[in-house]
């Protein structure tokens, strides 16, 4: 699929109890936000490993959001406190090695903050668009890769399907 315009790829690692539910609430409230962000659900923000963020960048993410319950409101009492310390350090480390601060953002979004979820996603998307594609990292990703010719099987089906749509 060729895209005319570059669209940022953003991953959000969110906790099950607050931010995921907040995102659900944004949905039930029919709030609108950009479609660039895909959510990966974990049980608690305390369970998000910094390597997940590196993996996301390795898989071409232009930005990452990590979000959990507000301090004191963790479903597991303290997971987000441990997360907070971890992320503070990790963010500083990435900054030092030259990854722009806005590439990795953090928020506390409760289950009742559907609006905040939509706002945060909108903000993060805007920030990443302002930064542009994460070229530095993507250059590393591009090393030792190759472009495969369109796969016979999947590709043809895609085309066939489109024809079907246009004909019928």
């Amino acid at each position, binding site marked *: 699929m060729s895209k005319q315009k570059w669209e940022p790829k953003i991953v959000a690692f969110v906790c099950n109890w607050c931010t995921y539910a907040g995102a659900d609430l944004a949905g039930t409230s029919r709030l609108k936000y950009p479609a660039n962000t895909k959510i990966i659900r*974990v049980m608690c923000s305390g*369970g998000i490993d910094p390597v997940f963020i590196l993996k996301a960048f390795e898989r071409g993410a232009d930005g990452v959001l990590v979000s959990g319950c507000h301090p004191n409101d963790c479903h597991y*009492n303290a997971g987000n406190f441990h997360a907070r310390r971890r992320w503070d350090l990790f963010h500083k480390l990435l900054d030092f090695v030259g990854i722009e601060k806005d590439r990795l953002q953090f928020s506390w979004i409760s289950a009742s903050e559907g609006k905040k979820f939509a706002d945060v996603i909108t903000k993060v998307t805007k920030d990443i668009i302002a930064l542009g594609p994460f070229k530095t990292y993507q250059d590393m990703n591009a090393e030792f890769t190759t472009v495969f010719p369109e796969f016979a099987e*999947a590709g043809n089906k895609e085309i066939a*399907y489109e024809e079907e749509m246009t004909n019928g």
Partner: protein
Amino acid sequence: MKIGVFICHCGENISRTVDCPRVAHFAEGLPGVEYSIDYKYMCSDPGQKLIKDAIREHKLDAIVVGSCSPNMHERTFRNAAVSAGINPFLVEIANLREHCSWVHDDVEAATEKAIELVRMAIEKVKRDKPLTKIRVPVTKRVLVIGGGIAGIQAALDIANAGYEVVLVEREPSIGGHMSQLSETFPTLDCSQCILTPRMVEVYQHPKIKLLTYSEVVKVEGFIGNFKATIKKKARHINEDLCSGCGLCITKCPTKKKSYNSFEENLAFRPAVYVPFPQAVPNIPVIDETVCMYYKNGKCGMCVKVCDRGAIDFEQKDTMLVADIGAIIVATGYKLYNIEKATPESKYKGYGEYGYGKYRDVIDGLQFERIASASGPTAGEIKRPSDGKEPKKIVFIQCVGSRDPSKGISYCSKICCMYTAKQAMLYKHKVHDGEAYVFYMDIRAGGKMYDEFVRRAIEEDHVKYIRGRVSKIHEENGKYIVKGEDTIAGMPVEIDADMVVLATAMIPQDNAPKLAQTIGIPYDKHGFYNEAHPKLRPVESTTAGVFLAGACQSPKDIPESVAMASATASKAIILFASDTLEREPVVAKVNEDLCAGCFYCKKVCPFGAIEVRDIKDVNGIIYKEVAYINQGVCQGCGTCTATCLSKSIELAGFNNEEIFAEIAAL
């Protein structure tokens, strides 16, 4: 591995913005996908049948459903999968509604996102491992926190069902706010008359262990297996010896050093006291802060008069630990602090009404005490300032409530009713008096409630004025109440002898702290959150913790009692079987790889991680590794992220699964 993909249109909820056939079609071309289809309502009976048939027909090993949030129908689809022979944990939901179709307008973008969400779910489901539910034993004992009417009702219901109850009350006596009330609406029966028998029943019930003057300081564990630590504050009276004769109280020379909080500070109490004559248990407490003995080591009058030798100045706080299966939180409410705003307070206060400055401007609970036959005035309506009978009295409703600028946006719900009741009581006792009520709206929804208010207006001639009071000031012993009659459209000025403010119910001061102790969420006001506003109103989001009464939101007595009985039945349902099924989303240590740094143990919020020694052939310890108690683990995964050697995996969300999701971005 053969994967089936099922894309739901949710009527038009998803298909309006997501091209569902295209998503299903795309999925079909992905590695591992055997079968892919879209359908109008996947959660409907035919939809579920479609899934089950496909599983059987195509011999699917795992399925992905692109539908609404897993919080809605994950269980539905898991059950469908189970009935077709697939492990429920080999079902993944791609959230195409709440996280996609409902929040995006552009069909192209939403469809592409949906494709990616489905792809991520497919990659995850490939790595999912079949899991089986964990069974844990249940301790059939309930901890009820709060001995007001809600706590009392819950405790009695559970105890009468044959289960043990530990009832913890912070104050020296149970009874709560209800014991302070004079009469109750809409029947005007005496509050204490109906409450006291219940209190005594609690005290005498063989299944109820009553811990008054105690607080819950720590809660560990999980549903069916909590461990609660309760601090029993020192009464300085030996409960086993005290006969409740009250001689120490009458002889105590320190009579006027502290306000009587039960009387809402309208009277004093001695250094040794019972909160009120009908207190349960009828055992006094020595107030260390005012007792002469603690000041200078002298006095000891109580020791001299107590023929049972029950006075024990050396008594210390004690800690009790109880195994608990379920917790009912019934901590009740307090009233809005209507004085001026303080820097610490999130409320602005009502300085303009002169509460705290003018002694005859009182709040609702103070009026209850004045109107109560057992109160400081023995039920006669008298002004606190000079003891005179007020001939003109003004009630102001919605003080604090429904006023975001003062810090509270919600309706306190019971004030319309209790104001009508209080005005009525006043009229019954002061026949020649005039009663005015300033109100915003009258909210008298409830059986016989509106009739009750009409009675106050029509039979007892209470004068209702729709409007707000802007200011109260004192002039020649009268309180000039300036307000507005918004119906007549003119200013009103009343020279009242007494003013009663119907202040809002707010959560107890330490409500957030207790919530953090137990591990339950609360709203911005401090009221505890129910698990679902409609369908699970008496459960907290923490399994095994239930909510009764005004700690959840403002409530009147019948509602609190109903809620209490509901929580009791929840606890009894939990106790109906000897073991409890738990979700198998728990962490597990790979002992081979564990380096034994025990950072996991430090971060575990539930104390689920223990040290396990690995010994050599001679029985000498050569390695210490972490071991996770599966019954205690709640599956947050904080240990997995903290573990440096990545020797811990959280079932259902293991790292391989999450990496696969990331890879499918």
